[in-house]
């Protein structure tokens, strides 16, 4: 119960005579409860989601068990389902995307945060935010009409000539495949890395930079050896944000990956990813086992994302305890 308010002299317990301010203090508790419920509802929705995915995939879980993760056959006619090609495709395309996007993104972020004049930095940041907001279908169209022909006619043959002895670059050049999907994904996630990393780099305290410069380091040395390590955990957060987007990306990937569930060492080979196959096959799936196998694939993707995010958290915790602000290598 609220204590006596300071604005009105109390005139006895008449209903409605409690002042506005004294009612406001109790409102704190109500506000706390309401905002707690909002936060809890997010957790509740996630739990419900996992529960539904679990319930919805009961048939294939009982029929295939863990073999679902080992089998590479996906046959809706003879009802044999295995998730391996899709897990492989999801991981490979995301890995290729990160391999391309991380150096480019962090390099661009360093340029924008440290080395560019403020006006250039702000203008470029505006465009990068625009890029991040472009819907993924547009990237898919970009992939199909620009990246795929480029890959088929110039880039893949060039890679084959130069590095064709590697198993990574063997096989006919269709234009579609893991490499193309990885490149399109990289284009999609670079804006995220640049945006977040730039913010993090800008928030490094000035005295860190100034101290490095005062000790005689060059501009680049102070950036690379002092500022970037200080911002390491934020930059890694941006990388995992990018990874999360790459793992779940559906439309753009399904348009350029070739949709042939194969496991191959070659990046030129067509493949398939979990999100892509669910989007492609779910609406026409007939038969309980088929539909539920697709739902189980969704559960697999959820678990994959969850595990990688958990890994991200652990890595960030581990590195931030060690390095932030201390400046040791």
């Amino acid at each position: 119960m609220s204590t006596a308010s300071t604005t009105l002299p109390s005139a006895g317990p008449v209903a409605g005579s409690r002042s506005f301010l004294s009612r406001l203090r109790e409102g704190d508790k109500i506000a706390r409860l309401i905002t707690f419920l909002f936060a809890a509802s997010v957790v509740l929705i996630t739990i419900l989601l996992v529960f539904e995915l679990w319930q919805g995939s009961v048939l294939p879980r009982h029929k295939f068990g863990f073999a679902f993760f080992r089998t590479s056959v996906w046959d809706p006619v003879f009802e044999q389902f295995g998730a391996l090609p899709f897990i492989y495709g999801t991981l490979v395309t995301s890995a290729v995307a990160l391999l391309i996007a991380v150096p480019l993104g962090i390099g661009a972020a360093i340029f924008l945060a440290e080395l560019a004049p403020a006006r250039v930095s702000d203008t470029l940041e505006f465009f990068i935010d625009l890029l991040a907001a472009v819907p993924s279908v547009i990237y898919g169209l970009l992939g199909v009409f620009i990246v795929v022909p480029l890959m088929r006619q110039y880039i893949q043959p060039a890679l084959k000539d130069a590095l064709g002895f590697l198993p990574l670059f063997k096989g006919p050049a269709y234009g579609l495949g893991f490499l193309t999907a990885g490149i399109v994904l990289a284009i999609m996630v670079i804006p995220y890395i640049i945006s977040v990393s730039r913010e993090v780099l800008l928030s490094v305290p000035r005295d860190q930079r100034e101290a490095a410069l005062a000790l005689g380091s060059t501009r680049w040395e102070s950036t690379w050896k002092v500022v970037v390590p200080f911002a390491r955990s934020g930059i890694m957060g941006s990388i995992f944000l990018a990874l999360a987007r790459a793992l779940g990306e559906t439309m753009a990937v399904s348009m350029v990956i070739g949709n042939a569930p194969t496991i191959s060492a070659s990046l030129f080979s067509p493949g398939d990813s979990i999100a892509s196959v669910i989007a492609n096959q779910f609406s026409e799936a007939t038969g309980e086992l088929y539909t539920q196998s697709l739902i189980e694939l969704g559960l697999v993707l959820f678990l994959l994302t969850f595990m990688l995010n958990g890994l991200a958290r652990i890595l960030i915790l581990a590195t931030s305890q060690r390095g932030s602000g201390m400046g040791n290598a």
Partner: protein
Amino acid sequence: MKRTAAILLMTFSLAAFFIARAALSITGAGATFPYPMYSKWFDEYHKKDANIEINYQSIGSGGGIKQITEGTVDFGASDGPMNDEQLKAFQDKHGYAVLHFPTVLGADVPTYNIPGVTTELNFTPEALAGIFLGKITKWNDPAITGANKGVNLPANDIIVVHRSDGSGTTYIWTDYLSKISDEWKNKVGKGTSVNWPVGLGGKGNEGVSGLVKQTPNSFGYVELIYVIQNKMPYGRVKNSSGAFIKADLASVTAAAAGAAKNMPDDFRVSITDAPGKTAYPISSFTWLLIPAKFSDTAKRDAVKGFVKWMLADGQNYTEALSYAKLPKEVVAKEERALNSIQ
């Protein structure tokens, strides 16, 4: 506060009044292939009888079968007939059967992109099966050149393109391949989605045709309506009488007429590889899935009325949208079957 409440109450009751007055609403869901046709039909039928409003959601044949079995829609639609298992599931759940009514015809055509070849190619069933099984790998294979004398086919690898999404188009194609090739039947089978031995996947008819257009030496299958409306070149297929037939509305209707003689009473028939000199071998019906019993007599009469109209006037709208109409024998049989809906 009182005034807002009064206004809200008035708005709701007005709305309720209008909704209550509005049409008898029938819902259906299912196949995407005939969606443009159904859209036109439902619109025309509503003009004819403003009290009946039919809503259709093209969520896919699988969705159509699922929803009609669940009972969430009044009728379903599917490019492939329900199999015995699905029929039994419906019967077990509802206590009565679900009936199939063919509405229009579709067909698949082979399309290709071979640098230097501009003529229409002929394809034998063996060639088609061999290419899609991955056994015929080059364009100058005897199985293909044998049917195309005088055409200079290069020694390039064939790049097969199929559908990545589940679709009635794939069902028609694989149904045909299963009929003319035992190896295909045992190895791959038929379905809206299959385990393709070779090839790249494109999403939708537009995905496959886009891939074929962009990729030299490629070969894929697309829906007839799509090639007609997009004016694409496509090949001829040899039918069971030995003639190389090009797919068009007439040859597709001829396939249905050829199969009409042996049409089972439940209309669940595949008309691929149909007999008939002018029949196009890769054709198929698409069906409406209607329960044999309705608890709501108004809905039953509305649905029956629509199907009756569809079989008569409705067939006049098909050619404008490039759908082949039903042959007369099938229409007559369906009109008789309509009477069994209670």
